[in-house]
């Protein structure tokens, strides 16, 4: 008898099983193939806009993705570095061979965690409560909680042109019956689709006609706990190339042969990651589309052709790839394919990621309708934490939209539901100024410590960091820069406006152009780089940060306006029928959550608020 069984060893499953075992739960991780644990079946990168911040948050809470990425990448860069601090985000090119290995080492170091191979085809459910799982060979394994992180493996079909093969990624098996069984227990099932581009043999690529994409030349890490361990000068290059008229012509000519346009796909594909045929059709006025070539691993000769995902038949893929400049003689080592799979309706999930229909069943990752390794890992972590908290008899850890991107992600899932695979974007976060790359630990580490995933030593480091920030804030408030002729010259040399009188460093730092780096000409601030960075951001953008906090407080106030669990929406007259149906289905916990449901209009919210005031004497 286990406390927790995690079904699936992808990015969600790894984080879920790691969290629950670390929190003292006897955990079993079931995977079809141990070699595929933490596999990266699509792009060879971790992070990206918004996603990179999710990885930082996972790390702050005590998850693994950040540190494993740090130990396995061969290129890393800060995106949006030229923009404001709120939208900066890390992305690395993670080595597809190294990443799973490092992850497996971490998992195997957990005493409470057992890893077993097996294909799950059914759950053991009694009185709407899950009691364990049933393997394909009929073996039953019992547990208090089951976390499903099955990725794209539920009734998966791999599609290439008109050819459809029942199979998971990499020709792995699929779970044929689990989704049907879930349906039987009362879960709504939807069909989604995603795709991956072709891989190209390195030696067949002519890189000379492409532009290089390099890593940053300053050391960077996702993790808050380790110093960079890679050699900045030995980072691998990626390359930028473009489609052309010829490519587009081939695509248009063969459009009907693709799985998507030939009508062979029933699943809904991600809006934010369209196939190349989608791009050509939808943006027919564009003369070219950007593509990137990225190495999959320094141990492999395969390169990933980002931006070129397609479900065309293989002969057309050959033609398409060869039309690209530099790939005229390219050898395709793996053809692109689309994959469709079953997912559960995220509207049937609580903010803790526990299912509303079946108690003690948690789901995380692509099965909940998301796309992306980072989104999956984040949910896996939260499912693992909340499953353990539930077994410990404690309240679930629910992150707010103003706490973390992870909070935004889960709130969106359980409030809005998904129609196509959900990808995190910075624009989804209304408080992104508060949800920065640089303050993930300040926001979340304490929560990680409280649930038991952050060690005493890590926590002390956090407290120390906070104290240093406070101290530096006081220093710059009191210490002043006297404008001597030398100081004046320093300002004039780089065309900065010379201060008219003696100013505190705080006043100076509020000017957009003045940094600690510049001030080090006059004063030695003996602080770590991250402390200086934090204080600089806090001072420079204080006006906006305060505005964001105010907005977050306002939201918090309506977040506190609870909607009683027993509310009967059929009794509220005048609600639009779509609003009534959505509210009844989603059962939002607060007025604020209700107001975020699509199809529920401001007028419906007003009616609901008035009803609550009348019926429940709601203030």
């Amino acid at each position, binding site marked *: 008898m286990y406390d927790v069984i995690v079904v699936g060893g992808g990015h969600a499953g790894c984080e879920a099983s790691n969290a629950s075992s670390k929190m003292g739960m006897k955990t079993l991780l079931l995977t079809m193939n141990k070699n595929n644990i933490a596999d990266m079946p699509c792009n060879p990168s971790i992070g990206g*806009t*918004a996603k990179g911040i999710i990885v930082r948050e996972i790390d702050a809470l005590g998850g693994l993705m950040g540190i494993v990425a740090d130990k396995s990448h061969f290129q890393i860069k800060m*995106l*949006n570095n030229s*923009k*404001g601090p*709120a*939208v900066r985000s890390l992305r690395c090119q993670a080595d597809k061979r190294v990443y799973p290995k490092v992850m497996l080492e971490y998992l195997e170091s957990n005493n409470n965690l057992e890893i077993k191979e097996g294909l799950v085809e059914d759950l053991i459910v009694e009185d709407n409560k899950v009691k364990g799982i049933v393997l394909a060979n009929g073996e039953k394994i019992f547990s208090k909680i089951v976390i499903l992180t099955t990725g794209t493996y539920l009734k998966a079909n791999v599609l290439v042109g008109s050819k459809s093969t029942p199979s998971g990624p990499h020709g792995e098996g699929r779970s044929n019956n689990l989704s049907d069984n879930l349906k039987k227990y009362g879960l709504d099932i939807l069909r989604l689709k995603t795709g991956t581009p072709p891989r190209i043999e390195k030696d067949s690529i002519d890189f000379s006609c492409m532009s290089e*994409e390099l890593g940053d030349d300053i050391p960077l890490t996702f993790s808050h706990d380790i110093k960079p361990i890679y050699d900045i000068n030995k980072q691998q290059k990626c390359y930028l190339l473009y489609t052309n008229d010829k490519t587009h012509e081939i695509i248009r000519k063969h459009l009907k042969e693709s799985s998507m346009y030939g009508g062979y796909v029933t699943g809904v594909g991600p809006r934010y990651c369209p196939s190349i045929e989608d791009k050509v059709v939808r943006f027919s006025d*564009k003369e*070219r*589309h*950007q593509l*990137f070539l990225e190495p999959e691993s320094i141990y492999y000769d395969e390169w990933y052709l980002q931006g070129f995902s397609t479900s065309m038949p293989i002969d057309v893929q050959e033609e398409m790839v060869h039309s690209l400049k530099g790939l005229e003689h390219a050898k395709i080592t793996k053809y692109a394919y689309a994959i469709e799979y079953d997912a559960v309706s995220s509207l049937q999930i609580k903010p803790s990621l526990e299912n509303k229909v079946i108690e003690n069943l948690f789901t995380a990752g692509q099965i909940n309708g998301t796309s992306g390794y980072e989104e999956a890992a984040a949910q896996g972590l939260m499912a693992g934490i909340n499953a353990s908290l539930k077994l410990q008899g404690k309240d679930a850890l629910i992150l707010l939209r103003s706490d973390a991107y992870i909070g935004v992600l889960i709130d969106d899932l359980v409030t809005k539901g998904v129609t196509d695979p959900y990808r995190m*974007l*910075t*624009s989804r976060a209304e408080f992104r*100024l508060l949800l920065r790359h640089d303050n993930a630990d300040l926001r979340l580490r304490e929560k990680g410590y409280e649930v038991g995933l952050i060690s005493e030593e890590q926590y002390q480091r956090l407290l120390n960091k906070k104290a240093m920030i406070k101290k530096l804030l006081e220093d710059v408030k009191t210490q002043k820069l006297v404008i001597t002729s030398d100081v004046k010259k320093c300002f004039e040399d780089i065309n900065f406006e010379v201060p008219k009188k003696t100013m505190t460093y705080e006043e100076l730092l509020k000017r*957009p*152009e003045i940094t600690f780096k510049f001030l080090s000409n006059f004063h030695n601030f003996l602080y770590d780089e991250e402390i200086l960075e934090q204080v600089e951001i806090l001072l420079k*953008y204080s006006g*906006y940060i305060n*505005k*964001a906090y105010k907005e977050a407080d306002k939201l918090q106030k*309506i977040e506190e306006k609870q909607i009683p669990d027993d509310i009967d929406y059929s009794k509220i*007259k*005048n609600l*639009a029928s779509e609003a009534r149906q959505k509210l009844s289905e989603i059962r939002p916990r607060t*007025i604020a959550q209700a*107001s975020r449901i699509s199809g529920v*209009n*401001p*007028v419906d*919210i*007003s*009616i609901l*608020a*008035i009803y609550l005031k009348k019926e429940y004497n709601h203030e």
Partner: protein
Amino acid sequence: MEDTICAIASSLGVGAISIIRVSGKKALDIVSKIFKGTNLKEVKSHTIHYGFICDKDEVIDEVLVMVMRNPKTYTKEDIVEINAHGGINTTNKILELLLESGCRLAEPGEFTKRAFLNGRIDLTQAESVNDLINSTSSRARNLALNNLKGTLAKKIKSLRKEIVDILANIEVNIDYPEYDDVLVITEDILLPKLKDILNKINKMLNDSKNSKFIKEGINVAIVGRPNVGKSSILNKLLDEDKAIVTNIAGTTRDIVEGSINLNGFLINFIDTAGIRKTDDKVEKIGVNKSKKVIKDADIVIVVLNGHEKLTYDDEKILKSIPNHKKIIFINKSDLKLKINLPNKYILGNTYSEEGLDSLKQEIINKLNLENISKDMTYLSNVRQIDLLKKASKSLKDAIKGLEDGLPVDMVLIDVKSAYDNLGEITGDIYKDELLDTLFSNFCLGK
């Protein structure tokens, strides 16, 4: 909102007919109970029927009943309107019968509230219904009608569209920093766009002053030293003896008001106590009041006595009023002119009424009333103007932020809040406190 509600929809008092409106699920059931004539439950929608309103066997009135079935009605519910003969007694009796038969008396503004909640009209339209009912001049009526048609909402919505296009573009820049086929919105591109939107908003704010003129009328204060003839001028302008006229200085201690209709605008004239240094307590209150009136007035007519030299008090008054709202009227042109004034003025007297038409014309000129646009899609109340001011402030903040060198993604916060403020005007964004305060302003009936 399950109740069926009723109210007298025409103004209460003596008129040829009065209209009683009933709205709600049971409107037809209830009216049928007290109506003798065609079976209303079987008639087509939007038809009129002749019959009698009866209290048991007693005939109360001979009426026409209009039946309008949902959803094509004002409230989107079933509506029955009873056209009865005018007169308070009959009308009230019918209302009583309806209440006895299961109707509830409509709260102030409840019909409009239902129209809004049932999604027939947006917030600006709901507000204009109230304005329409309370309109005091033909221009005010047109303004309210225009807004009821949704022209204000259209304007606000097009501003929001402009903003959201910019927001969307910048979000794409942030989420896809490496894609070069999307225009990157830099400060250089953003700044003029924001300034353009700000200008449009500020113009609307400016126009809203005109809307105040249209809705509430124009306040014209008449000031001057005691006994220069202010009250006589007022009486002549109003063509009635409203102010008390005596030859004892300081007689007028209260502010006396009267209104005329000038070119479709309501002009409120305000007589003030003469301004001078005084120790008389009652008069002192009047003098303080006068100062406030001057401050609140749209136009101030300074009356001077042409038969006397300019005094210290005169000069003080002239100085205290800004030129853009000052009109100088030199009274007593029938007597020998002793005053010497460099300023532009109008000369006249109240006996021959010389100069009074010029005075009216000058009011029109000064406020540029002839050029007030006829399309009239102005913001028409404090709530709307306040929100527009907030939007203007947010955009100003954004512009300042950009000019101070803050990154584009940072000032987006301000742009977004301007977008939200505009959404609140039309009710596209939910704000908790909105509805309660709003509907308490609505008048009964409509």
